[in-house]
């Protein structure tokens, strides 16, 4: 019996076409194909879903009506950061991100999908220049996954099952790391100085052992400051034959040294700052960089695209694969490979190509200098402690308002009324830091924006 529900997304919903096809198969009704599903397992009646919005106009009106209830920080004077940053996304990045050819492709061969292989190879290559490494993977789900995977790799490379992670690690990232490594790998924390934010080298030293696979820290740190003794941390790790694993912000590497320069064996991080909108935290991709060392390359669970010759002297590509020839007795499972974040890798490549070395330098300079300007001005506000932790900064810093007798919740609500998104409230996540907020300054924050913030804060704090 032909049903009359025709939908633009379902070409063969036309009853006559269905009949033609059924006839060719020799079956009377589509129901016959479902006879293998026992009646007791079949849905009775219809699924409990709202009536369809069949016309595109109605759908658009409905969804845009819901979206209208959002007040994007991107449209305001926005000082939120802390892992997801409000950098400028070049129009060319948006253009390439919307190309159907890339957007709707998936797992084709390096022939008919040659474009994505070359684009991702180029992404990996440009990241390699930025990070000063030889190997960069096809992106993982996000930067936190990259950190977790890098630590897992370190365990396989060293054959050990413990990692030492800086206590200053971003709290949500730490949650992902712990969740991922459980139960096989033990995660221990090492302390940091509450004023400088720097790693407590004595505590690290005391906790290092022959069971430590890796020492992990972040630079810039989640709370915005820079770790100045990376070299010493790496050295301590190496003394015990552990690896140094460092998480970094690629937006900073136009002016700051990549972690390899201060002893990192594995470098990881998040590429959202490189041409990806904030998307409420829904646009993420992670990278893991390593030296050209078979011991490291073998342990990558994610895909690596290699370049290869073709029969006609073109640039060809393919997955690099190798046979692991022995089984290690401490072998935990190879991690899994699934659909992760390839498209964002391509877009980050577009971004890096647009920026070039000069652009990345200008980006770094913008961040550091605007941050310094904001810091200086905030420090001038009565009762405000800025910075609350750390000495050198890249693009964010912590401001403490304990001396003003006002909560961050109140301050941010007042700022919001004035069209300003105040810094991230840290009082719940870091209760020891009192009423503190994390203020982020990207190249989008003009002098007027910063002056406006400071003026409004002045008014709010004195009222």
């Amino acid at each position, binding site marked *: 019996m032909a049903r009359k529900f025709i939908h633009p997304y379902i070409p063969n919903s036309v009853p006559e076409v269905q009949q033609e096809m059924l006839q060719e198969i020799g079956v009377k009704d589509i129901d016959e194909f479902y006879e293998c599903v026992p009646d007791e397992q079949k849905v009775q009646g219809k699924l409990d879903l709202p009536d369809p919005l069949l016309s595109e106009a109605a759908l658009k009106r409905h969804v845009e009506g819901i979206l209208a209830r959002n007040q994007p920080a991107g449209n305001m004077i926005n000082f939120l950061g802390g892992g997801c940053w409000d950098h400028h996304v070049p129009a060319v990045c948006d253009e390439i991100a919307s190309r159907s050819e890339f957007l709707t492709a998936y*797992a084709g*061969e*390096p022939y008919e999908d040659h474009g994505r292989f070359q684009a991702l190879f180029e992404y990996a290559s440009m990241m390699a220049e930025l990070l000063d490494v030889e190997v960069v993977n096809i992106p993982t789900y996000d930067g936190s996954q990259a950190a977790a995977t890098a630590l897992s790799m370190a365990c396989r490379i060293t054959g050990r099952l413990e990692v030492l992670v800086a206590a200053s690690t971003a709290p949500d990232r730490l949650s992902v790391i712990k969740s991922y490594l459980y139960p096989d790998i033990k995660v221990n924390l090492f302390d940091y100085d509450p004023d400088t934010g720097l790693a407590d080298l004595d505590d690290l030293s005391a906790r290092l052992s022959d069971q430590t696979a890796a020492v992990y820290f972040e630079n810039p740190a989640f709370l915005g400051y820079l770790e100045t003794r990376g070299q010493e941390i790496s050295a301590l790790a190496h003394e015990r034959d552990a690896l140094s694993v460092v998480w970094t912000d690629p937006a900073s590497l136009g002016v700051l040294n990549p972690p390899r320069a201060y002893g990192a064996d594995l470098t990881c991080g998040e590429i959202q700052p490189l041409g990806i909108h904030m998307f409420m935290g829904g646009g993420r991709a992670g990278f893991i960089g390593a030296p050209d060392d078979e011991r490291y390359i*073998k*342990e*990558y*669970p*994610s*895909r*690596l695209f290699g370049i290869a010759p073709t029969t006609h002297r073109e640039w060809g590509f*393919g*997955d*690099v*694969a*190798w*046979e*692991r*020839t*022995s*089984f290690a*007795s401490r*072998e935990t499972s*190879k991690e899994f*490979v699934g659909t992760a974040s390839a498209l964002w890798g391509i877009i980050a490549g577009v971004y890096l190509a647009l920026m070039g070395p000069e652009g990345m330098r200008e980006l770094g300079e913008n961040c550091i200098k605007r941050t310094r300007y904001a810091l200086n001005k905030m420090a001038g506000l009565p009762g405000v402690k800025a910075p609350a932790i750390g000495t050198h900064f890249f693009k964010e810093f912590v401001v403490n308002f304990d001396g003003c007798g006002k909560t961050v919740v109140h301050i941010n609500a007042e700022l919001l009324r004035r069209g300003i998104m105040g810094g991230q409230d840290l009082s719940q996540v870091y209760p020891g830091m009192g009423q503190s907020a994390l203020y982020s300054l990207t190249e989008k924050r003009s002098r007027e924006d910063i002056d406006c913030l400071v003026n409004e804060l002045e008014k709010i704090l004195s009222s």
Partner: protein
Amino acid sequence: MFRLGLIINPVAGMGGPLGLKGTDGEEILELALKKGALPQAPSRAAHVLKALSQEKDKICLLTCPGPMGADTAIQCSMPFETIPLKINQKTSPEDTRRAAKMLQQRSVDLLLFVGGDGTARDIGSAVGERQLCLGVPAGVKMHSSVFALSPHHAAEIALGLIKGRRSQPRLAEIMDIDEEAFRADQLRARLFGYLPVPGSQRGLQLLKAGSSASEKAKQQASAAFFVEEMDPNRLYLIGPGTTTRAILQALGQEGTLLGVDALRDGQIIGKDLNEKDCLALLDQAGFEQATIVVTPIGGQGFILGRGNQQLSAEVVRRVSKKQILVVATPDKLQLLRGSPFRLDTGDPELDRQLCGIYRVLTGYRESAYYRAEL
């Protein structure tokens, strides 16, 4: 330069067109020649050499004089060197064995041999696991898995190696007809040994998941799992095969590749046991306290009856089905293409009783439940 060794068994395959079962044995050969049999192997060899001649600049060909290699090389205009092997017009298995030893001593990168199971046995007995080989099929009896699918296929594999393609060698079985059984009118294959052959060269599209383990690594993995689960009080009869041998290697011991070894408390307590030895140990151990560990042999998935005949019906009857443990890598299972394990203990009634589901150790902390049928 790629050092390629070549041995042609000129009498291989001559019985085929005449319906004879192989040409080993003088009387059979005489019979074949009387009936007008023509040598098959040289033309197969020529097919391979012609395909390889495109890379002749990269190849240093070492071969035997006359009908065992040189004649064909001349015919194909392939430059070559001969080894100092003295042969007569009528060649013999001993010639094959001597040639193989000489080529191995001259460090050939690959030893190509053209012949059948008999030839494979001769090569195997001469060089064992020490020389990378590849069989070009030309015999009548072709039970061994040391052979390429065809002369064309053999040439493809050799060319791949010559051009520098890497592939992990795998140990391939040398099987031949069990003559005893044959005399009793039963056609069964026996395991005679192993030869390292070039591993499978995977197509691009398989290379999607980063690293994968070689066959050897997978065998080590399932061995490690076995050792983890091993009960120190139990008697284990470890059957022939490379996957089972990996278990003994994991315990730091040397087992017999073609024989049954007995294991208790992580120690080998008997090597290369025959049926009688097995029965004695089983009676000692007592019912329920023994496990027979086997791996499929011979390509058709036989877990009993091909290559492990020491584990006779009598031996197997001493244990229950639950006490038969199979070890096999996923690749080995994949070769079965969905077909079940097979049984041929010699006792059809016992075979029937043994049909059903078996636990198979397939990797580290990884197992499967796989079906055995008649």
